[in-house]
């Protein structure tokens, strides 16, 4: 089998732009997923019975539906519900973020529950409100403790952005498919794409791991 890297070199700007989209979609869905996840995780832990059950419905739903289905539904079905179309990137970020949020929420909840009960009591004894205690004392420790798990979710967010190719988000995998189809060089292009995903995710995983080893003591009450 001969290997020809010319198609990659020729379409380099096109693929670089696709990589940019992958990064943008990953980071944006991560931010959205974390905002949803922290809010849902905190409310499920401290918000009382009703919120626990209601938000539990969201968490369980998202964990029971394949991400692919969520993305397809967001892009093809949801616009019919609201009567106007949404662009693929927005739908992709929303679908990925809402899906990820459920997993972040459960991770945050586990982290919050793992902080010693007496830490909350010490904060309350200073005169803090529960909200102040959660924001300044409990949540920061929970985030430190859950850093390895959150790091895995960060890597998953980058990898899952490739699934958004099915709704035509012009991210790396989607654009690679286009170039591969035009040039008839699937081996070179898909191998390159695989390598890029690895080079993107591996350092992130390692960096989170190293960061955790440096800050782990900050979460050990």
């Amino acid at each position, binding site marked *: 089998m001969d290997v020809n890297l010319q198609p990659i070199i020729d379409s380099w700007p096109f693929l670089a732009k696709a990589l940019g989209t992958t990064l943008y979609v990953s980071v944006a869905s991560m931010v959205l997923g974390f905002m949803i996840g922290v809010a849902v995780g905190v409310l499920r832990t401290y918000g009382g019975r009703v919120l626990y059950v209601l938000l539990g419905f969201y968490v369980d739903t998202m964990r029971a539906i394949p991400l692919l289905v969520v993305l397809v539904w967001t892009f093809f079905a949801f616009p019919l519900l609201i009567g106007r179309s949404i662009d693929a990137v927005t739908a992709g970020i929303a679908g990925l973020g809402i899906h990820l949020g459920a997993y972040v929420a459960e991770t945050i909840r586990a982290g919050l529950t793992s902080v*010693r009960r007496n830490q909350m009591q*010490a904060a309350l004894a200073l*005169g*803090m409100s529960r909200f102040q205690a959660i924001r*300044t004392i409990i949540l*920061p420790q929970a985030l430190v403790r859950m850093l390895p798990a959150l790091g895995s979710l960060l890597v998953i967010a980058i990898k899952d952005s490739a699934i958004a190719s099915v709704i035509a988000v012009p991210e790396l995998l989607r654009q690679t498919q286009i170039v591969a189809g035009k040039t008839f060089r699937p081996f070179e292009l898909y191998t390159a794409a695989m390598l890029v995903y690895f080079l993107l995710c591996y350092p992130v995983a390692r960096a989170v791991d190293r960061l955790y080893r440096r800050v782990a003591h900050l*979460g050990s009450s």
Partner: protein
Amino acid sequence: MNKADPILTFEAVHKRYGSVMALDGVNLSIRRGEVVCLIGPSGSGKSTLLRCANALDVLDSGRIVFEGNEVRSSEATVRHVRRRMGMVFQNFELFPHLTVLRNVTIGPTTVLGMRRAAAEGRAMALLSKVGLSEKAAVYPSALSGGQQQRVAIARALAMEPALMLFDEPTSALDPETIGEVLSVMKVLADEGMTMLVVTHEMDFARRVADHVAVFDKGRVIEEGSPKEVFENAMVPRTRDFLSHLGWHGETTIPTAASTREVS
């Protein structure tokens, strides 16, 4: 307000955990400037009483009145009471994600709305008072137990409380670091801080307390001056408890020399 007025009173306080009667009708009052030590066997309700005083635990019946306000009458009262009462825990409960300095400033900045710079000034003064100003920038994990507990005392003092609650402050410490914590507490007592101390340190109770209350099975079974309790216990159960600590009542009043050990 008269110095002899009680700052904190417990009136017929009851608290039940499942089938266990943790507090079974406790009546006790603490006057301004007074150091009151609660002693008694483990599980006799001493810590529960402390935790009810600042509403970390909710009582079933009875009243707790602090500076004229009934604790627990409203959410606002509870927070007001907690601001005015410092609490020191058995396991320190420093905030591990914050530096020593931030541990001491977070109360004033978050709860009192104090500016960071002013709070840091206050915190540094308190850290030097407990002998730890050079540790301001480190995290609690780098401190020994005794140092952590001294920071915890500074953290509580930063709120400028009217009353300090100590919940077995030396029970989790290595024997060699107990002294440094008791010394800080002695200094506070000498400065006139009102203190309610749950402790198993009988020497401390004997030398520093103005008033000692003996707990057993959720009740105060005896109270009085340290001399009365330690040397002339009227209640057999008190004598029994003290004898199990290797305390036989025959020891004389502390001499000036033995007082110096803690000061």
